[in-house]
């Protein structure tokens, strides 16, 4: 029996025609999925009642992909094949990752992309092969999609996925591609702070300026939004990509260690397991202190040491206040960038689990001189807002509900002579938008023009992010400055850009969609899509590997057999050479690389060529010896 939800007046769906839509918060540390049921936005839980899905993907030795808590538990045991915080690598090339030394993953520089934006897609080497961040994110999205469809009893028509306000075009496109790989129809990408504001219904007001203070597990973001005529404009964003709730856990952990060291003089370094145990205890204590005055941290370490300390709320404040203070500096900068003072702020929204800590709330309240909005769960607020937006976009609301529009996060422009940027679409333009500008040739008889599309606020091309390059050819030869080339920038509702250049007199046109700006071409995506249908690709690889192993085994056997019989036919050094090749091949058979096995087979074949010829001659002469010519005539 299908279970029904209450629809808006006159909006009842026909049977089997429910327009199921979900909002997805694809987070760095955790991800969530929410939906609107009976006009109420709710976060969907998994079979075990968890709302948060840790954004961790693990490729297991038996070829499976697991996502979430189970994967997270294996993070320290199998770090190379267990990818966490993949969001940080979305739409990034190897050069963009500055702290490679601290990340356990094996990064591989990918191929140059077709757009020629001199970007290489970043890949990670796992036991399941090379994986792009897009593919890894797609696994998280697949898991959330599955949860939503199980909870809603039907297929999703689409989803709204949230992204940080500062995400550039490449990162947004990477997110959309991940959704496509996961089989999700993206209704829209929505800025995370905007989603939080929507969850609080701030979009129902006519206007206002709001601050979204988002302290997640590992990142801190502060955004200032201005709402006018139903559109949220991002006035400023700032943050600290290396500051989050985890740092508070770590402070408590260090404090506990100090206490234990004080008590016992001989304290051996902690095992990895103990570190994890103590960090978990630290997190639990932090969470407990949100509503209680003191927390007991008690456990037994693997070396037998008993830990039993009590952390009080004032002590927590004392040891972590500097972290809270650290969030205020980006906040001040954002306020300064937006050219606002405290009195201009109409509301402050807290996002992220860490903002439950009372001293954070107090610090925010003290700074903004007003009580922040906290009645929604700060872990869920972004997903809840995304679900509300998804519900509207899926067509489950009446027309009088305004569609929320987004704005371009950064200016879009192109390179002009001397490496300068000419901005075509300024930042904070409401989407969708199209803007055109005319350019001309620089030299007499110039017949082609190279168009370099960039994104950013800086004046020099080198300081902006390169999105794409393309050429307009076939401009009729004219004196410099006579040609009129109209360049049109169009950004759709998802914030994705296409650029067209048109020579006005001849109508010659060149066009580019700034899709693969982070390095994945349409072909590659199609390929990934195909590969994601079932496990055809994995099966194929497995088959190639098995075939190679079987082949190699057969060759080793036959060469060994031949050596046993005819080793007298070759020199000792030749024999040694063959034996070395056999050893190499034998060791490679255990590995998972079909190509390497095949290569070693070829090498062995080559090394035994002389031997094989010698054997052939020997057997021929054996067959011929002692026979006269008549006998061997056929």
């Amino acid at each position, binding site marked *: *029996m*299908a*279970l*029904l*939800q*209450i*629809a*808006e*007046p*006159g*909006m*009842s769906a*026909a*049977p*089997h025609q429910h327009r199921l839509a979900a909002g997805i918060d694809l987070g760095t540390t955790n991800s969530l999925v929410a939906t609107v*049921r*009976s*006009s*109420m936005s709710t976060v*969907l*839980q*998994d*079979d075990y009642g968890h709302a948060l899905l840790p954004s961790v993907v693990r490729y297991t030795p038996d070829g499976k992909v697991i996502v979430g808590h189970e994967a997270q538990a294996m993070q320290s045991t199998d770090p190379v094949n267990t990818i966490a915080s993949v969001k940080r690598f979305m739409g990034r090339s190897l050069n963009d990752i500055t702290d490679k030394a601290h990340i356990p993953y094996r990064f591989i520089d990918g191929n140059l992309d077709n757009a020629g934006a001199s970007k290489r897609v970043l890949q990670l080497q796992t036991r399941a092969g090379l994986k792009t961040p897009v593919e890894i994110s797609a696994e998280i999205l697949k898991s959330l999609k599955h*949860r939503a469809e*199980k*909870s*809603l*009893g039907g297929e999703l028509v689409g989803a709204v996925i949230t992204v940080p306000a500062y995400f550039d075009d490449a990162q947004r496109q990477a997110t959309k591609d991940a959704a496509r790989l996961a089989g999700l129809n993206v209704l829209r990408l929505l800025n995370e702070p905007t989603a939080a504001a929507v969850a609080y219904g701030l979009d129902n007001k006519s206007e206002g300026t709001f601050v979204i203070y988002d302290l997640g597990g590992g990142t801190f973001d502060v955004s200032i939004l201005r709402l006018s005529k139903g559109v949220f404009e991002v006035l400023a964003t700032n943050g600290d990509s290396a500051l989050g709730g985890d740092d508070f856990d770590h402070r408590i952990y260090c404090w506990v260690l100090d206490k234990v060291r004080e008590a016992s003089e001989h304290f051996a370094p902690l095992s990895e397991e103990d570190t994890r145990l103590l960090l978990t205890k630290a997190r639990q204590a932090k969470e407990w202190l949100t509503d209680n005055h003191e927390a007991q941290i008690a456990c037994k370490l693997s070396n037998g040491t008993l830990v039993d300390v009590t952390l009080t709320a004032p002590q927590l404040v004392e040891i972590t206040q500097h972290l809270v203070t650290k969030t205020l500096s980006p906040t001040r900068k954002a306020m300064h960038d937006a050219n606002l003072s405290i009195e201009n702020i109409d509301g402050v929204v807290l996002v992220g689990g860490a903002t439950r800590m009372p001293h954070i709330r107090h610090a925010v309240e003290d700074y903004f001189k007003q009580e922040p909005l906290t009645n929604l769960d700060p872990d869920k607020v972004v997903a809840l807002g995304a679900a509300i937006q998804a519900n509207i976009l899926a067509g489950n609301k009446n027309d009088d509900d305004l569609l929320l529009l987004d704005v371009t996060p950064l200016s879009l422009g192109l390179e002009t002579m001397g490496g300068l940027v000419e901005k075509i679409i300024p930042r904070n333009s409401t989407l969708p938008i199209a803007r055109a500008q005319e350019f001309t040739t620089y030299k007499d008889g110039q017949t082609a023009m190279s168009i370099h599309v960039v994104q950013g606020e800086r004046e020099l091309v080198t300081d902006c992010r390169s999105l794409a390059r393309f050429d307009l050819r076939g401009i009729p030869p004219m004196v410099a400055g006579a040609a009129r080339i109209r360049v049109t920038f169009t950004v759709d509702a998802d914030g994705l850009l296409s650029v067209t250049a048109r020579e006005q007199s001849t109508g010659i046109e060149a066009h580019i969609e700034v899709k693969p700006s982070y390095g994945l071409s349409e072909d590659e995506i199609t390929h990934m899509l195909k590969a994601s249908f079932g496990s055809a690709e994995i099966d194929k690889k497995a088959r190639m590997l098995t075939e190679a192993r079987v082949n190699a085994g057969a060759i080793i056997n036959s060469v060994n057999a031949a050596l046993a019989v005819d080793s007298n036919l070759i020199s000792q050094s030749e024999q040694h050479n063959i034996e070395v090749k056999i050893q190499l091949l034998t060791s490679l058979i255990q590995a998972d690389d079909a190509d390497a096995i095949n290569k070693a087979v070829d090498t062995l074949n080559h090394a035994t060529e002389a031997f094989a010829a010698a054997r052939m001659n020997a057997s021929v002469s054996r067959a011929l010896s002692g026979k006269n010519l008549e006998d061997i005539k056929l």
Partner: protein
Amino acid sequence: MAITLTETAANRVEKFLANRGKGIGLRLGVKTTGCSGMAYTLEFVDEMQAEDIAFESHGVKVIVDPKSLVYIDGTELDFTKEGLNEGFKFNNPNVKDECGCGESFTV
């Protein structure tokens, strides 16, 4: 006869109405689509129509148009969970046959 809500259903409806911030009650109805004849509709009510019939159950105003009432009179609306899914369920004594999924029915 009448239309009633179970207590669970009534609590839910009240919660949803409060969250929505407007609306005077819940409308139950049928429309003639679906794979086996009729389909249930369940909507919030912002204003009543002249011919509407209203019931009260556990403090929730239940509104039905007279044409629909013929098919669903005596119905008890329940709120249940099935695995991860949750929602409202019509227990309609008039139903002779329903399609596999229970979204549509014949009388």
